[in-house]
C-alpha cells in the first residue's frame, strides 16, 4: 500500500448525491453514516416526538465525561458515532404536513432509506411504488425485521430476539451448555453492511441503466445467511451442530487461555501439524509434538482436554500481548483478548487508524472524540468521518429553505405548529450514575479517569 499515494483532492465516491435517512437504532443509522463518509449529503429525519433511540436510554452509550448537559439528546456517544457527518431535520411525519415535506424532499433526492415496520411507509403511501411516482429514478432502501411479505412480516423484531431466531444462538455458548446470547445487537451490523452493499449496487445499477430500484433488507434472512454452512450440514448430513465454546469445529487445539494479570486472556489456535509443533516449541514442551496422543489433528481433537492445561500453564506466565507476540512470531495463530481500552491504545490499532478523531463545534462543549471509521482503506481515495452527529433539528432551515425553497412565512408557520422543531417534545429521562457506580453495579468492568490524556484528546 505504501507505494500508492492517496490524493487528498480525489473526489469522494458519492459526492453530489442526496440521501434521506429516516432511521432508528443501529443498522440504518450506521449505514447512513457510512454514506456520509463516502461523500453523500445525508439528511437524517427524526420526529420531535420520536427521537432516534440512540439519543437516550439503554442503547445510547454515555455522555461526554458522563455529563448530560442541557441538551442530553445531542450528546450521547453512540448517536454521534453512528450519525457522523449527517444533517438533521426534526420533522413530525405523523402529521400530514410533515409527510408533505418528506414528499417534496423525495422529489429532489437520490436515495430514500427507512427502517420502519413495513406497514408504516405503506400506510403513509410512501412505499416504493408511491415513492416512484414522486421521483421515477429514486433508489429506496428499506430495512425491517422479517421483510414486508411472508407469515412473520408483521412480527415485532429486534436484534436481541432475532439472534436466537436466525440460528446464531444455537451455535453460541460454552461447550456442551445452554445457548448464549451474543449481545451487541449482532445482526444490526450485518444489516449495516448489507444496506451499504445494496445502496452501492443500486447506484451502479442507476449509473448503468438509468433507473432506480428498491433494496429490501430483512434482518432475519440476513442473520440466517451467517449460519449457511450449518444449514447445508443439516440439508446434506442431518447434523444439527453443537455448542463448542471456544474450540474449533474441526481443528485442534484451540481455546482461550488465562494470562498473567486480572482477567487477561489470549486465544491460541493450531491449524496443522507444523503449527502444533511450533506451539509445542514455544510453550517449552517440544516432546509433545512427537507424542502419539497428539500426533494428528484427529488425535488432538480426541485428546483436547489433555492439551488445554499445558497451554494454560504457559500462557499464565505472560501478559496477553506478550503471549500473542511470542506465539505469532513462531507462526502460531494467537490473539490477545482486547477490550475497549486496548482497542484505542494498542500499537497496531494506532498505526492503522481505524478510530478517527472528530472535532465538535465549540458551542457543543464536547471537544474532540474518537469514533470507529471504516474497516477498509482505499489506496487513492482518502475517506474520513466528516464530523460528529448533528444536533436535533440543526439543519431544519437549511433543508426546508435552501433545498426545498420554502419562504420565510411558510417556515415560520411550520416551526410555530411544531411540524419542525429543535427540542424533543418528550425528552427521555436521563440516567445519572457516576462512573464509579457503573463499575460497582457491573455495568462496566473499569474506567480510566485519565482517558483523555491517554488518547491525546485533552481540551
Amino acid at each position, binding site marked *: 500500500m505504501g*507505494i500508492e499515494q492517496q490524493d487528498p483532492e480525489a473526489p469522494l465516491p458519492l459526492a453530489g448525491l442526496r440521501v434521506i435517512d429516516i432511521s432508528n437504532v443501529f443498522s440504518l443509522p450506521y449505514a447512513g453514516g457510512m454514506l456520509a463518509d463516502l461523500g453523500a449529503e445525508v439528511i437524517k429525519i427524526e420526529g420531535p416526538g420520536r427521537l432516534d433511540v440512540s439519543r437516550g436510554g439503554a442503547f445510547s*452509550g*454515555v455522555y461526554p465525561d458522563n455529563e448530560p448537559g442541557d441538551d442530553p439528546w445531542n450528546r450521547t*456517544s*453512540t448517536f454521534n458515532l453512528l450519525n457522523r457527518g449527517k444533517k438533521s431535520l426534526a420533522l413530525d411525519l405523523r402529521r400530514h404536513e410533515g409527510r408533505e415535506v418528506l414528499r417534496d424532499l423525495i422529489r429532489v433526492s437520490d436515495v430514500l432509506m427507512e427502517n420502519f415496520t413495513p406497514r408504516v411507509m405503506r400506510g403513509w403511501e410512501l412505499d416504493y411504488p408511491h415513492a416512484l411516482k414522486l421521483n421515477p429514478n429514486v433508489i429506496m432502501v428499506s430495512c425491517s425485521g422479517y*421483510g414486508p411479505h411472508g407469515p*412473520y*412480516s408483521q*412480527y415485532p423484531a*429486534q436484534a*436481541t*430476539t432475532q*439472534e*436466537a*431466531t*436466525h440460528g446464531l*444462538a444455537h*451455535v*453460541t455458548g460454552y461447550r456442551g451448555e445452554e445457548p*448464549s*446470547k451474543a449481545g*451487541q445487537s*449482532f445482526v444490526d451490523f*450485518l444489516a449495516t*453492511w448489507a444496506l451499504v452493499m445494496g445502496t*452501492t449496487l*443500486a447506484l451502479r445499477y442507476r449509473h448503468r441503466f438509468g433507473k432506480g*430500484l428498491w433494496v429490501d433488507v*430483512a434482518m432475519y*434472512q440476513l442473520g*440466517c445467511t*451467517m449460519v449457511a454452512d*450449518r444449514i*447445508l450440514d*443439516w*440439508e446434506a*448430513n442431518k*447434523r*444439527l451442530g453443537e455448542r463448542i465454546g471456544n474450540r474449533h469445529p474441526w481443528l485442534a487445539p484451540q481455546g*482461550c487461555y*488465562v494470562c498473567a494479570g486480572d482477567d487477561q486472556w489470549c*486465544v491460541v489456535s493450531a*491449524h496443522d501439524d507444523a503449527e502444533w509443533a511450533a506451539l509445542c516449541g514455544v510453550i517449552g514442551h517440544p516432546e509433545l509434538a512427537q507424542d502419539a496422543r497428539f500426533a494428528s489433528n484427529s488425535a488432538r481433537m480426541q485428546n483436547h482436554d489433555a492439551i488445554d492445561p499445558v497451554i494454560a500453564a504457559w500462557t499464565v506466565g505472560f501478559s496477553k500481548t506478550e503471549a500473542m507476540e511470542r506465539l*505469532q512470531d513462531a507462526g502460531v495463530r494467537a*490473539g490477545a*483478548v*482486547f477490550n*475497549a481500552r486496548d*482497542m*484505542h491504545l494498542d500499537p497496531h490499532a494506532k*498505526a492503522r487508524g*481505524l478510530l478517527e478523531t472528530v472535532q465538535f463545534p465549540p458551542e457543543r462543549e464536547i471537544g474532540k472524540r474518537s469514533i470507529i471509521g471504516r*474497516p477498509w*482503506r482505499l*489506496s487513492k481515495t482518502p475517506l474520513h468521518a466528516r464530523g460528529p452527529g448533528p444536533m436535533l433539528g440543526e439543519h431544519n432551515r437549511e433543508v426546508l429553505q435552501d433545498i426545498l425553497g420554502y419562504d420565510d412565512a411558510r417556515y415560520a408557520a411550520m416551526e410555530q405548529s411544531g411540524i419542525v422543531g429543535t427540542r424533543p417534545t418528550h425528552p427521555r429521562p436521563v440516567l445519572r450514575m457516576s462512573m464509579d457506580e457503573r463499575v460497582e453495579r457491573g455495568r*462496566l*468492568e473499569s*474506567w*480510566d479517569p485519565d*482517558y483523555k490524556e491517554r488518547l491525546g484528546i485533552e481540551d
Partner: protein
Amino acid sequence: MVLPAILDDLMVLDLSQGIAGPLCARLLGDYGADVIKLEPPGGECGRRMPPFFHEDPDPEKSLFFLLTNLNKRGITLDLAQPEGSEILRKLARTADVIVESFAPGYLASLGLDHATLAQDNPGLVMTSITPFGQTGPYRQYKGNEIVAYATSGIMAISGTTDREPLQHGGFPALYEAAMNGMLATNVALLTRDLNGFGQHVDVSIQEVVTSSLVINQPYYSFAGGVQGRRHPEGSSFGHITPCKDGYFVSQEGGSVTWDTIADFFGREELKEPRFADPAQRLVNGPAMDAIILDATKDRTMTEMFKTASEQFRMLFGIVQTPEDLAHCPQLDARSFYQEVEHQLIGRIRVPFRMWNMSAGAASCRRSSPLLGQHNAEVFAGFGYSEAEIGLLRDRGII
C-alpha cells in the same frame, strides 16, 4: 425477459482462499460478474473444510467450498512458478477486479501487487482481505475466526465474568469480512466509474469485527468506560430461557407494557412492583426467573413465538436450529434458498439470498467449480491454443 445484472460488465479474478475472500468474490458473481477462481494445482485450502456432502471428505465435496464458490468458473495456476506469474499478469490486463487473501507482501514478491499490475491496467481494483490488514505491526500475524474475535474487542464482552471470554459460534467474523470486501469493492468501482482509475482496497478482518462495537468503543473515548462480560447471576429476562422443547428469549421494549408481558406468561404476580419496576426487577431477578421458568415449562417454542408475536406484539425469539431454518416458511417467502446442480453432488438446495431487490437481484447461475474444471475454456478465451494449454498442464503450471 432477461434482466440486466448490475455487475455483468465485470471480470473478476479470485486468487483468495478460505472463507472471507472466496465469499467476497462470490458476492460479486451473485450480481452478475464473470468470476474466475484461480487455485494452486493442488486446490485451495477451502476444499478441505467440513461439512462434506454425506460426510465424504473428498475435496470436491466440501459444502463450505460449494457455498463460498457459487457463480464462479474455476482454473488452476501455479503462481509460484515464473511462468504462472506471467500468465496471471496477462489475465490481469483485462480484469476489472482481483480478490486476494495472501499474506501482505506475497503478491509484491512475485511482481503481482496492485501498483505493478495497474501499470498495464489503470482501472484495476484489487481487494485484499487479510486478518490484520496490509499495514501496522501485526500485518504478518496469522488469523482465523477466534483470533479476529479476540483482538477485535468483542470477545472481552462475550460470555460471563466467572468464565473465560466466549466467541460466537460459527464463522460470523469471516462472513462479515466477505460482506465488507464486497462493499468496499463496490465503492472502488463507483469511484472508477467516475474517474477511470482503480485502486487497492485493504480490508482488515480484525477491524470488521471491531466496527460492530458502536456502544463499546465510544464509551471509552467519551468517558473512559471499559465494558466487561455480564454477571452470571441475576435476571434471565432478556437472556435465553428453556421451555418445553427448546429455548426462547424475550425482550422488553417495542410498543408493549410490562403488564402485557405478564399477561403473556399468564402470571398475575409478575405485575407486582417488585417485578414491574425495572430497578426492583434487577434485585428480584432470581424470583422472577423461577416464575417464568414455571410458566413456560409446558409451552413449546413455536406456540410461544406465534402467540407472543401475533397476539401480544412482544419482542420474542426462539432458538431455532439449522433444521428449523431448513423448513422456515418466512425464508421460503423471501426466496432464500436456491437450487444448484453440482457435478458430483447432484442437485442441492443452498442458503443463498442475503436480501431482496426489485431489480438486479442476486442470481444463482452455477455451482462451485471442480478443480480446474474450466481450464480449457478459460485459457482458450485468453488466446491460448490447445497445444499451449497441454504444455502448461504437462509442466504442472496449470
